């Protein structure tokens, strides 16, 4: 283990830093994050790399001490044990030094936390609603159309579609735009997560959660539901297709025709609820 860690730690660092590889989906045998595609993700990677150096240092330091102690103070090399049980200086030191290290970690951590909380002036909003077991999306700023997004089952996969990640309707979003994401759920807890963009937030029934993202590059980004939501929890992926602003405008025009408006959809939902009734509970 110790050996593995020592070999792997720098590897992780390099892999995490090598953002040039354009990964928007998980890749085999990779050790670090998926390549960052949003400003938030870039900063998270930065902080994580700092933390990784610190924690690897701590681990190696403790390992070194353990090995030294085992070699130097074993029965053979040190037959007579010392009787020291106190040393105020060192006790103060090993309390104070960790505090300093924690400060070093905490300051950038707080900066990041407040930066990623919500967008200052979002240019558009999408609503994400979790269901057992699919996502639906609404575009309130673009004519309020809505559609559902289901996973493509294994036997219907086309060439190049990743198994368990591909969906029938991707969420199409423009790049270089501050996008406000509003999340809620229709039934149980879900979590909407896209690793490369670092949006991960729970969808909670009765609450609307807010986060934001800004996509740097065109491409398809995959994610998965990240809160246990029942039988098919592992089978409700998220797929975001990031396109240029012009392509997005064109897509909106066709999407408006293709998909129903959200408000009518809500009405039918309500009607269904009224029909089936909730008295069963």
């Amino acid at each position, binding site marked *: 283990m110790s050996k593995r860690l020592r070999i792997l730690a720098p590897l992780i660092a390099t892999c995490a830093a090598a953002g040039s590889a354009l990964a928007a989906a998980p890749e085999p045998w990779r050790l670090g994050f998926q390549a960052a595609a949003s400003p938030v993700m870039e900063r998270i990677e930065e902080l994580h790399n700092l933390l990784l150096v610190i924690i690897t240092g701590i*681990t190696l330091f403790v*390992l070194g001490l353990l090995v030294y102690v085992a070699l130097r103070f*074993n029965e053979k090399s*040190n037959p007579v*044990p010392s009787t020291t049980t106190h040393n105020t200086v060192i006790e103060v030191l090993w309390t104070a030094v960790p505090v300093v290290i924690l400060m070093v970690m905490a300051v950038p*951590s*707080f900066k990041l936390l407040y930066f990623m909380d919500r967008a200052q002036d979002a240019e558009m909003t999408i609503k994400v609603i979790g269901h057992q077991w699919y996502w639906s999306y609404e575009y309130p700023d673009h004519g309020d159309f809505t559609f559902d997004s289901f996973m493509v089952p294994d036997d219907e996969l086309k060439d190049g579609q990743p198994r368990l990640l591909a969906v029938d309707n991707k969420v199409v979003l423009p790049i270089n735009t501050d996008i406000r994401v509003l999340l809620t759920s229709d039934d149980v807890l879900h979590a909407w997560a896209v690793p490369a963009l670092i949006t991960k937030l729970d969808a909670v*029934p009765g609450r609307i959660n807010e986060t934001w993202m800004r996509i740097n590059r065109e491409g398809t980004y995959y994610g998965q539901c990240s809160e246990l939501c029942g039988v098919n929890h592992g089978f409700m992926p998220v797929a975001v297709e990031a396109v240029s602003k012009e392509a997005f405008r064109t897509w909106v025009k066709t999407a408006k025709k293709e998909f129903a408006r959200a408000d009518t959809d809500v009405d039918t939902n309500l009607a269904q609820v009224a029909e089936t009734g909730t008295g069963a509970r």
Partner: protein
Amino acid sequence: MYMVLAMIGGVVGGAMSWFIRLELAVPGIQFIDDFQFYNVLVTAHGLIMVFFVVMPALIGGFGNWIVPLMIGAPDMAFPRMNNISFWLLAAALILLVTAGLIGGGPGTGWTVYPPLSNAEYHPGPAVDFAILSLHLAGASSVLGAINFITTILNMRAPGMTLHRMPLFVWSILVTAFLLLLAMPVLAGALTMLLTDRNFGTSFFDAAGGGDPILWQHLFWFFGHPEVYIMILPGFGIISQVVSTFSRKPVFGYLGMAYAMVSIGVIGFIVWAHHMYTVGLDVDTRAYFVAATLVIAVPTGIKIFSWIATMWGGSIRFDTPMLWAMGFIFLFVVGGVTGLVLANAGVDTAVHDTYYVVAHFHYVLSLGAVFSIFTAFYYWIGKMSGRRYPEMLGRIHFWITFIGVNILFFPMHFLGLQGMPRRIPDYADAYAGWNMVSSFGALVTALATVLFFFIVYRTFTAGEKVAANPWGEGATTLEWTVESPAPFHTHEEIPDMGGRQPAE
């Protein structure tokens, strides 16, 4: 008896995790095609390992056996209460297993988050059974905690002041207080969930004005101290073992004792770091980041004090010492990933991924379980009167150490790549590390088989041991009575007046 229960629990819980790893060994569906069953396995594995393996082994088993011996008392203060607390736990285990077999089973995760655990999404009696099981286990723990607090506060030998108690006793005392304060909160939350499910209340149902997040606050207010309930006795055990085999008193005794107390206290005010992505206010998250990072300080004091105890010592590497050193290293690895997770920003990236799974298995599966093995090899002579086979013990350690690292270390990579927890099948890109991890599970399984063989050999062919097999380093009172310890010990009350602090 607690130990037997813990071993049964360990086999059941372990078997479940091996099923999970087998299913996840390669992409695609292997043999679990009912995903509800997969979720039930995940749930039951968590609950059994927490409530029916680690807790009964450390607190029920070693706590009940060793604490009275260490403080010079004949037995626990309330032996009959101890009895009912054991049988409540046995009943709870049966209820939990029953829950898994009826009505589709509870596929909710051990956190039992509503609305998924509500009647609407889990009809049938399975979740109700699980709730009742946890109620009984909780009642059992509270009774046990009262028993420990009474015993430790009232039945110490003359001259054994609080500041002369062995650190294991300190750890059990702190643990008992945590249990006493945390368990009732869980019981309250469980009762609310039970009435939500059966009597039409809506504490956690948004449609009725309730809030599913309330459950998470209540659950983790119990859940985080619960984590320390599982690891603190381990800290105590490691302190005893490190001191014994270094033939040196514990370094910085008072610091060690109060580090545990402060871990216990801070443990109550960090619960929402399990909830960074539920949509908490950003200032709230900032507070919980700060509070969580603070825990690293007393934990660091403990790690460094153990090393300082070994420093200048004359260390003998018997099996218990190997396990103790393994514990220290693996706990550090688990601890530093905890530092990463404490930062709400980075946590957003790895929350509910395998990174978290790796983290808590390093601190619990490798922390708490390693301390259980440490204690087993350390005290089995005292408990059974027979010595374990030394060579096999060492082999057991090395196989386990290698196995668990192959098993859990790749999970960090999977988590960073974004593989979510609790999924029965994964995208093809995750195949490589999952395969490695499942191979590690196989190695660990072999080690466990070896462990049961060692138990068998110890009881059938182990040589008899004297009162103190560990020599001059073992200074605590349990080594002054014969092995195995008689039913009623310390008939002549030991006088601790002239002794040094039991460090």
